[in-house]
């Protein structure tokens, strides 16, 4: 069976499953799942660019996603003027102090030749610089965080349209990736994995603890949306007209009952309409990125990347700077993950730093890439749909399976209660086993890379 057929079949099966969810559960739920599938697909695409094109293993997906989320918040929330007045100047000074320290370091390293003296001065500048910056930074943070701390206590953002943040999120993630790549690429292949794990934990720790920046665990909710709000939609004339026209035949004729029924339909329809708007936006991003990725893969750049991946030594011998190419691809892939992170926060409408669980984000995305087919972009998208759908539906299914299979124990049985309580953790086990099985028995995934030359 060729890839096209397999792809159509795969997406067809997912489509049918989603159709069943739509008709048997609700269409709102179906589109909630689809939206998250689309975001996951963008993330999986980013990871596939790194792994499939270049064989780079990124264990910090959660961190890059979180950076995208931070970007969404920083771009869209209106600035908190009071907080800026309270500590903005001082924060600016501490930023200037940081620049001064960096400048001092550069000048010092130019003036003093490598050796013991240089190491000594490096340490001195780092230690001294640390205290110098903190002298301005600590009071700035304190005054910002104490400004109306119940409702804000942070600087806010730019107050710009949130869609703009999808690009900014990409740049944020790209910046972090560049730093990590600079340090760990070109060394042992697993050092990159460890370094990404580290930077991801640090990014999340910063977002949880630097309240002046992200409000930490107090979250930032009510981010402005790129799509209409349900409440307003329900009052729009054209929307009411469309909905009543659509449901004309099923609405009761009696006036009061009719108005009630219409109101209920309006609530449902508005929620679905909002979901559909998001679906459209996400789909546009995904298609655009897929097209770009496809172009890149067919271009000489893509051929070179594959050449490097398949035989690093030969590529090295041909004078290709492998580490540099790896850095490029690592930055690009992480940027795509950052875009997806911004999209996710946009969809959720709030920034909740404590939800960036590395086990869930990083691992699930990896499962999508490996199961879908390493190196094949459409495979990653298919993997994202299948894995996310499975992940969502496995929870009630697992609950039901355990409930059913332990019913004979009786409701008071401790083991039954314990298993029911922890049933959701079995998802990790099952997903892990599926991943290991695919790696072992079908290492090229559902849709194998078809342009291996």
């Amino acid at each position: 069976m060729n890839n096209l057929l397999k792809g159509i079949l795969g997406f067809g099966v997912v489509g049918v499953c989603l159709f069943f969810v739509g008709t048997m559960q609700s269409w709102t739920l179906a589109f909630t799942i689809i939206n998250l599938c689309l975001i996951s697909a963008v993330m999986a695409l980013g990871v596939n660019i790194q792994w499939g094109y270049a064989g780079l293993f990124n264990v910090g997906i959660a961190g890059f996603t979180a950076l995208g989320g931070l970007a969404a918040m920083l771009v869209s929330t209106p600035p908190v003027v009071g907080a800026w007045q309270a500590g903005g100047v001082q924060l600016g000074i501490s930023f200037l102090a940081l620049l001064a320290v960096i400048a001092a370091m550069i000048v010092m390293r130019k003036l003093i030749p490598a050796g013991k003296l240089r190491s000594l001065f490096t340490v001195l500048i780092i230690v001294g610089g640390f205290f110098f910056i903190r002298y301005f930074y600590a009071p700035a943070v304190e005054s910002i965080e104490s400004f109306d701390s119940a409702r804000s206590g942070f600087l806010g953002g730019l107050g710009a349209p949130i869609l703009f943040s999808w690009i900014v999120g990409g740049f944020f993630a790209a910046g972090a990736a560049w730093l990590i790549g600079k340090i760990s690429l070109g060394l042992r292949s697993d050092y990159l994995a460890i370094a990404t794990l580290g930077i991801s934990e640090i990014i999340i720790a910063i977002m949880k603890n630097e309240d002046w920046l992200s409000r930490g665990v107090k979250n930032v909710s009510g981010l402005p949306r790129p799509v209409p709000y349900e409440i307003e939609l329900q009052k729009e004339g054209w929307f009411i007209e469309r909905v009543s026209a659509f449901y004309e035949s099923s609405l009761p004729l009696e006036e009061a009952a009719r108005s009630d029924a219409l109101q209920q339909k309006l609530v449902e329809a508005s929620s679905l309409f909002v979901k559909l708007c998001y679906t459209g936006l996400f789909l546009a991003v995904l298609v655009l990125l897929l097209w770009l990725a496809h172009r890149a893969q067919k271009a000489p750049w893509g051929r070179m990347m594959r050449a490097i991946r398949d035989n690093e030594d030969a590529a090295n011998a041909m004078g290709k700077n492998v580490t540099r190419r790896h850095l490029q691809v690592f930055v690009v892939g992480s940027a795509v993950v950052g875009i997806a992170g911004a999209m996710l926060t946009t969809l959720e409408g709030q920034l909740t730093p404590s939800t960036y669980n590395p086990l869930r984000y990083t691992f699930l995305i990896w499962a999508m890439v490996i199961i879908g087919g390493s190196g094949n972009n459409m495979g990653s998208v298919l993997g994202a749909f299948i894995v996310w759908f499975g992940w969502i539906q496995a929870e009630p299914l697992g609950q039901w399976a355990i409930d059913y299979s332990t019913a004979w124990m009786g409701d008071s049985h401790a083991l039954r209660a314990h298993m029911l309580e922890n049933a959701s953790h079995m998802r990790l086990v099952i997903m892990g086993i599926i991943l290991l099985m695919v790696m072992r028995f079908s290492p090229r995934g559902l849709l194998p890379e078809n342009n291996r030359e």
Partner: protein
Amino acid sequence: MSTDTMNALVLIANFILVPGITYGSQLALGALGITLVYAVLRFSNFAHGDTMAYGCMFTILATWWLQSIGVSLGPLPTALLAIPFGIAMTAILVIVFDKLVYKHYREQKSSPIVFVIASVGVMFVTNGLVRFIIGPNDQQFSDGMRFLVRARDFKKATGLDEGLTIKLTQGLTVGIAIIAMLSLFYFLQRTRTGKAMRAYSDNEDLALLSGIDPKKVVLVTWLLVAALTTLAGVLYGLDKSFKPFTYFQLLLPMFAAAIVGGVGKPLGAILGGFIVAFSEILLTYAYKKLIGYIAGERPDGLVQLLSTDYKFAVSFMILVVVLLWRPTGILRGKSI
């Protein structure tokens, strides 16, 4: 010596030395396991932290059972009796995973990164099992005597303002870690099997040529890893508390320890464990009181370099410094 100096020394001992040595021993045991996998199987084992949690979990379950039938070690924690059971269960787990997962890639001579991804898969299965069996929450399983040295008694005996507290679990951690490390080194340096392991790690082809059985070397390695991880997991759990996610987070400091010391070098793992532990504590300790004793006047702030929320950042910084400055680590480990 003046009272202030004495107080300062006690303060250092109480808040830096004792916790540093304890945490360092725990990290060192963990990093030793990572290093053995590096040395013999040649990959970074991302499942290591969760394997620790797994071993600790079975020790906890056995401890609860022992407690329920009234077995106790008197002043010592009952968990000590349950450790062999935890090690046995962990040994079964890692050997099953080796047979089902890693063996295949060894035979295929896959690249190290494939092993790493497989180990991430193993990590998730292990993590899920732990959460399913014991749940994601904190568990306490320490019993017996709590303190070796109590702050109150210490103050009374010395007449100082500062007290010194040494928990029994801290003493046990250090004692057991020393015994475990000495036995490991005896095994590696003196026994035939231990030497075969080193030979295999040093030069696989020549080891095969010399008639060393790679299957046996791999098996023994996993058994050692099971013992080390369970010990590290139980000692950490006794000293602090058991929570599955904390063990996952220990992965970063343990990797840092193994890499700082020199990949594949057992001595390096121990050295690295203490470097990471002391860096973490020295950078997150609030020096306010200490400066007070030394300078005679307490400063206004806490004088804390980094908030404890960022303690994992310390391991990361150490890692970055090593990668930039000497990627093979202090003891010049291998670079594959």
